[in-house]
């Protein structure tokens, strides 16, 4: 068996505010294997986003070790981190974060620009991912001409377009209504069935039940880490 996809040892992130040190993440040790579907829960301010940003290589830990696909991220420079974000990780954000006044197709193709692909290949791959998200007839729509759920599906297509190992989603359903949220979780389950690793932060306990493992944060630490007992299956949308 190869190395686990993600391994953290005593991961810490401190913020200094007005001379006082705040331990936003305060010693988290955790292993996530390939193909897992993990939900992260916890009260507001418990450090979930801070933890996600570190494992997504967007933020640098204050101390501790982070191994991604067996590689110690401390040894990597900013270019290498950019490459990991590009090739191994896909991000889905609460506010979708699509480029305004830019078509769905061009939005999805952005990561491929940085992967160094040519124009035609970028378009073909982006189109394929959008079609897989059921947006084959919305390729040229700009975000302003898409519903919230559609925008989030464009964002998922973008996260998947470089065929990453894992998807990090920080409150992906936070801006969506219940039914659309369930649709999105259905998509996640389907992707997970196809082998991708998923880590999703959510506030809603029933959303967390779509995952197979649930981790709860409090004050920057993990206070609970267990398999989801009665796992829900969505009608795949």
């Amino acid at each position, binding site marked *: 068996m190869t190395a686990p996809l993600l391994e953290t040892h005593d991961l810490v992130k401190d913020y200094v505010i007005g001379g006082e040190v705040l331990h936003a993440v305060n010693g988290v040790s955790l292993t996530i294997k390939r193909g897992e579907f993990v939900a992260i829960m916890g009260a507001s301010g418990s450090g979930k986003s801070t933890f996600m*940003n570190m494992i*997504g290589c*967007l*933020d*640098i830990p204050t101390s501790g070790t982070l191994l991604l696909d067996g590689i110690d991220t401390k040894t990597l420079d*900013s*270019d290498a981190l*950019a*490459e990991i*974000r*590009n*090739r191994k990780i896909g*991000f889905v954000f609460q506010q979708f*974060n699509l*480029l*305004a*006044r*830019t078509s769905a197709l061009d939005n999805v193709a*952005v*990561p491929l*620009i*940085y*992967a*160094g692909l*040519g*124009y035609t290949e970028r378009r073909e791959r982006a189109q394929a991912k959008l079609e897989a998200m059921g947006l084959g007839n919305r390729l040229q729509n700009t975000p302003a001409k898409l519903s919230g759920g559609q925008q989030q599906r464009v964002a998922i297509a*973008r996260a998947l377009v*470089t065929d990453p190992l894992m998807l990090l989603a920080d409150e992906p359903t936070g801006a969506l209504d219940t039914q659309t949220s369930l649709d999105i979780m259905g998509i996640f389950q389907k992707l997970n069935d196809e082998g991708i690793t998923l880590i999703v932060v959510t506030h809603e306990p029933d959303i967390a039940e779509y995952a197979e493992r649930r981790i709860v944060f409090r004050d920057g630490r993990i206070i609970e880490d267990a398999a989801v007992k009665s796992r829900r299956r969505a009608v795949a949308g």
Partner: protein
Amino acid sequence: MSKLLNSIAGWGVNIAIAMTALRTNLMRSILTTLGVMIGVFSVILAVAVGNGAQVSVTQQIATLGSNMAIVVPQPDSGSGPPRSTDRGRLTERDGRAILRQVSGVSAVAPQIRSSVQLVTPGRSATTQATGATPEYGIVSNVAASEGRFLTDGDVGAAARVVVIGQTVADKLFADANPVGETVRINRVPFKVIGLLESKGSNLGNDNDDQIVVPITTLRQRLQTTAMQGPDDVTLLFVGFEDEDSLLTGQREIKRMLRDRYRVPKGRISPFTVRTTTEIAETTGQVTQIFQAVLVAIASISLLVGGIGIMNIMLVSVTERTREIGLRMALGAKRSDIRNQFLVEAAVLCVIGGAIGLTLAILAAAIFQQVADFPAPVGLDTALMSVAFSAIIGIVFGGYPAIRASRLSPIEALRSE
């Protein structure tokens, strides 16, 4: 090879991203471009006008005649063309002595200059009359395009004949052929025997606005300012066989005149002997300074345009911090972000530069037509301006671009 292709494709993408960004803020982009446009426009126009001045000066010198020295009875004023005030004495006899004694001299053309009024029925003109001998034609490259030039006979007989310049002819005779007509010069009737070959105008100086009469006639009938002796002249043109004899001859003439007028040792000579080469050099220097000043002033507007670019790029970086964070999250390296903003600035500048260049070419053409002054925009100027504007973009866009690329991904992403 494929790496090279990739990097070219990479720049292509940067240009595409830049164009999209510029299009989404079209009005702002246009206003920013305007600054660079005006800067490039004024620099190119300044260079063109400066070049025109150079060309003009060269032409002006050429109309004087080459391998020639000008002798005026006036102390050397240091630099610049000789002044005609504080006149001492210089005579036709001096001219003959120079022709005899200085080696390499091909001809000496003594001249008296005087301002005169010409009248034909219903018309009049004021111009400068040169009292000359046929040598004037040889030394300073003047000939008649219609009729004939002066002859020794005209000079010997102090004939009342005149050769007129094109501008004078236009004023007095309009379209009619002036040769054979009569014109009153300072009330004295003269016969027009020829029309001077046109030499055009340089730097606002009309070379065709003059007339030539025999030196003897001018002395007897037209002279308004009294000379000290019957043989006195305003100046001498001394023609040389070649450039070498011009250089040695200049020194010889100076020495000879000192001897002839017994100028004591240590006293400044009351004569100036200036060669056309020297005049060309000093005037060339003056026009170069003129051009440098023009370009310097124009460069300030280009600098202001560049600062405008920097300002807009800083605003753009601040406004798009979140986009920068997103791009970093999606895999953009620092260099990608830097290049994106560099290209954006360069595109703004090159577009501004291209428009500025086009307008400058148009303006130079109009200027040439209206002011009758050459203002050539060369290929070198065009290339220089495009390169210049790209450099402006890179220099002034560089700081905002590097600032953008240094942002931490998460901080950029979290910014509002």
